[in-house]
């Protein structure tokens, strides 16, 4: 079996996922194609060497439908003989694209892949592709379906995470993200988004609110309390599954949950021969990948069991990991991870995360894997674990080693 390496990682800045967000004017197709072109340009790629473009994307309708991956290849400067594969593992789609590519490479199916993803949440609203698990009563009732915000609040309630805890975590995420930008820690990866004439549209993450403090967050009302307690009453469903709880403690709001943003990211994955042939230097080895299904009601606890699984399968222990990227879907997701493994917060999301910078669903996994790689190189550390919680009760993880 050959090894899979990361040769490059790049991402766009994240635009606010609203009509007044800077990237709202850019199509999903163009943003995807621009990222592919940047990957080609930065590495002086002969795109005929690319076996496939695996593109994570959650809401695959409208302009994101119809296998956007293939459309993006055709819209880019890539050779038309490169195919494209759109995939959806919800919030881990970007990471799953990398894992699929890595495992294809390891299995000998091709030398190199582009893996990444895109989500233009300002243009293709989250949930607009429908979802039987939420709408079909036979499955919604079987799985005790509640929306993710309620799930995050169940995590907080079940694991004794308070409103102060989740707010303090969010304040720290903002502070770390601000400092990371200040120090230029994302400079290696972030490519500016330009218009058709080469004029800049967006060069920095624009969702951040540096200087956010406990007082500012404290004034926000819990976002999921009404739908939990009043209409339509999801808490009653949650308590059917978690009957030892008397009630759900609603602690999450827009300030301590991931931001809705636009963005795209890509990694160049290949085996050793590929690097040798094209004169590219591998930056990291993909040591292990894993995915898992978990309880769909609490839904977002996947990072814990998938980490246990990936460590066991790769014969590692939690102390072998120098750096963690745990997607900040909601504060409680990360706090639960930290609690479960008793890891030092100083090793987790050291440059901030989705609470501060946003979570472009299909792209995030690829983005934070790139962030982990950059940070390994900057800090001189060796091993990083990237993991995300996933809708409908799943988890995904990747372990990389710097070279």
């Amino acid at each position, binding site marked *: 079996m050959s090894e899979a390496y990361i040769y490059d990682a790049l991402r766009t800045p994240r635009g606010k996922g609203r009509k007044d967000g800077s990237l709202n004017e850019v199509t999903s197709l163009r943003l995807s194609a621009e990222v592919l072109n940047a990957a080609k340009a930065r590495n002086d790629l002969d795109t005929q060497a690319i076996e496939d473009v695996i593109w994570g994307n959650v809401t695959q309708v409208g302009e994101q439908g119809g296998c956007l991956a293939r459309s993006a290849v055709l819209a880019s400067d890539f050779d038309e003989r490169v195919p494209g594969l759109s995939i959806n593992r919800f919030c881990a789609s970007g990471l799953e694209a990398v894992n699929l590519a890595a495992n294809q490479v390891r299995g000998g199916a091709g030398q190199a892949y582009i893996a990444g993803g895109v989500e233009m949440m300002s243009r293709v609203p989250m949930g607009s592709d429908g979802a039987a698990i939420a709408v079909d009563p036979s499955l919604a009732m079987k799985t005790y379906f509640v929306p993710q915000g309620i799930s995050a609040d169940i995590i907080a309630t079940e694991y004794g995470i308070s409103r102060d805890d989740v707010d303090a975590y969010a304040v720290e995420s903002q502070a770390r993200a601000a400092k990371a930008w200040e120090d230029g820690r994302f400079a290696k990866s972030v490519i500016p988004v330009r218009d058709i004439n080469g004029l800049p549209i967006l060069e920095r993450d624009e969702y951040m609110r540096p200087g956010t403090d406990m007082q500012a967050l404290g004034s926000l009302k819990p976002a999921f309390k009404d739908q939990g307690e009043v209409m339509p009453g999801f808490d009653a469903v949650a308590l059917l599954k978690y*009957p030892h709880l008397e009630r759900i403690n609603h602690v999450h709001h827009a300030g301590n949950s991931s931001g809705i943003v636009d963005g795209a990211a890509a990694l160049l994955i290949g085996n050793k021969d590929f690097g040798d042939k094209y004169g590219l230097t591998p930056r990291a080895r993909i040591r292990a990948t894993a995915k898992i299904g978990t309880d769909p009601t609490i839904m977002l606890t996947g990072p814990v069991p998938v980490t246990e699984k990936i460590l066991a399968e790769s014969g590692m222990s939690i102390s072998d990991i120098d750096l963690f990227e745990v997607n900040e879907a909601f504060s409680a997701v990360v706090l639960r991870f930290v609690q479960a493994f008793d890891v030092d917060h100083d090793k987790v999301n050291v440059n901030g995360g989705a609470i501060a910078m946003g979570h472009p669903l299909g792209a995030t996994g690829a983005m934070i894997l790139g962030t982990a790689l950059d940070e390994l190189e900057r800090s001189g550390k060796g091993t990083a674990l990237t993991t995300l919680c996933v809708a409908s009760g799943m988890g995904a993880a990747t372990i990389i080693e710097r070279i």
Partner: protein
Amino acid sequence: MTIFTYDQDSDGVVTLSWDQPGTSMNVMTLEGFAEFEELFDKAMADDSVKGVIVTSAKKDFAGGMDLGVLGKIRAEAGDNPAQALFDFTMNGHRILRKIERNVMDPKTSKGGKPVAWASPGTSAGIGTEIALACHRRFVADNPKAKIGLPEILVGLFPGAGGTTRVTRMMDLMSAAPILMEGKMLPPARAKSAGLIDEVVAPDQLLARAKEWVLSASDADIVKPWDKPGFKMPGGAPYHPAGFMTYVGASAMIHGKTQGVYPAAKALLSAIYEGAQVPFDTALRIEARHFTSVLLNPSSEAMIRSLFLNKGALEKGAVRPEVGDERVKKLGVLGAGMMGAGIAYVSANAGIEVVLIDQEQAAADRGKGHVEGLLDKGIQRRRVTEEKKAEVLGRITATTDYAALEGCDLIVEAVFEDPTIKADVTARAEAVIPETAIFATNTSTLPISELAKASARPEQFIGIHFFSPVDRMMLVEIIKGRQTGDRATAKALDFVRQIRKTPIVVNDARFFYANRCIIPYINEGVMMIAEGVEPALIENAAKQLGMPLGPLQLNDETSIDLGVKIAKATKAAMGDAYPAAAAKADEVIFRLFEEGRLGRKSKAGYYAYDEKGKRIGLWTGLGEIWPVAEDRPDLREIQHRLILVQVLEAVRAKEEGVLMDIREGDVGAILGWGFMPWSGGPFGWIDIMGAERVVEICDRLEASHGPRFAAPESLRKMAAEGTRFYQGTEVAAA
């Protein structure tokens, strides 16, 4: 047999009038369906017929389907009941679809005959589903009329197109109270909901319907769903407008039903899946889900207990064969909450009432309570000022026992003290006719003991009401050792007059209902001492479909009453007092000492705010009885909470306290809300299978003590593989 009459007038309008022989309310039978179709076909085939009015010769249109039919179909279906029930349901769709589409051209929808529905009064279930298939619906402006689809209340859902049609006539949110809660609407509200089209003066009902039939155009008689481009009102499930409604509907139904009612789930699936396909396909989907519900043991059990057997008991299934014993003049002794409640329901039923208390002020307060209940009715527009005056006029509040002269029934509801009760018994019997029946409303004292104070113990009986009397539907009639048949008949006729449901049991400690409820409360309470999280105890109970968890129930019934009962029981039983009860007492006595008496003291297992609103479980419980390390399995908690009730019911049957399992089941559901989906304690055993129940008993007996020991009769059933009931048909013990 003639069920429908066919009458064509000179203008070519046929009136199909439903007049089920031998009953005051029309109910649909297989014969009724066949006859209706035959007559409808005749009208369609006759060129001189311009249109049809479907109406009723009785004061109401229909009460619904004869649910006994379902059991018969299943029984006759042999080894493929699914096919038989599906075919039966599809046949209903075919006939109702025929009303809707009749002779119109299937492509152009032209050339059909208008069909009006004209109801003089109430219409429920299949009656309303027939209405929905008609082209225009008229209801008489009759204050007693209610229109609706209450199937969900007996474990079904509207399966003759009601589900598919209502969700195409209004958006899902508006349809929810009608389909998912089974709300019966007065004509004006049925009209504003869009269920019917016109409310007309009763004497104009048929004239107006006829006028419409003669004037209706081709376009007037095509349903929206039979026109091109039809869209689901409020949006289909994956339409942006409908998406969140459907997401919310599942959650609401799931939370409200705690997931234990199969009909609610099937209803929602029928709506969801139906909303994505053409109308006729949606009907077929509705039929598939309806069939699945008919095949579900829970629905079978609910129909049996809540419809068939409840009806049978109300109609006197266990009444001794003696003459008419309806009450003309009632004496109520004690004008407290119970006495006043009994006076209210009796006067409401047209019975003259003498309400007696020691002090005139107390008697007046009792009558004032009745007035308060009537005023609430006025607020809700269910009672008129005239009706209020009439009801109050029937009640004489006094201290004078001489006013009891001429009473044919006395219900005593004084303080639970044998001496006081003996005294009022003697005082009343000194005045009332020798033929009068004397009843006590005691909930704790043995009837046979109290009867000793009576000069005529064969005319002495227990009539145990539940609180609040005006809302609780069950009345437990308790026969003392010497109680005679006439007393039982009197009590049953009285209960029938006040339109409640009776069960008749023999005298034993706590009779039937309390005998089962008290162990339920105790089981929950002792779990606190074991270190089970209080929320888990309460939620486990609610997830069984119990209306209240044991802790909340104890807060409602009050903790000092629990202490009192515990002390009295201990005194009566001595060394035989079970260890398990002593464990529950530890908690109850401690709360009592802390002054936490339940809701009435705004402190109990729960914490309450100033106004007495429950805030949440009292956090002090966890300080006194710390939560144990190991959390018990939810199933085990639930089995304990179910079995302490169910085994009491079985023992009551073994001991002859219960004489009829139907009474045990109906009484449990109406008396204390025992898991309605199960059809009652005996129904639950049938659903589980006696063998499995005995298995659980053995396991729980080993881990939790002899209160879970399987009674002999249950072991025998397990060994022989028998059941309490054979199918849906009304089954005697």
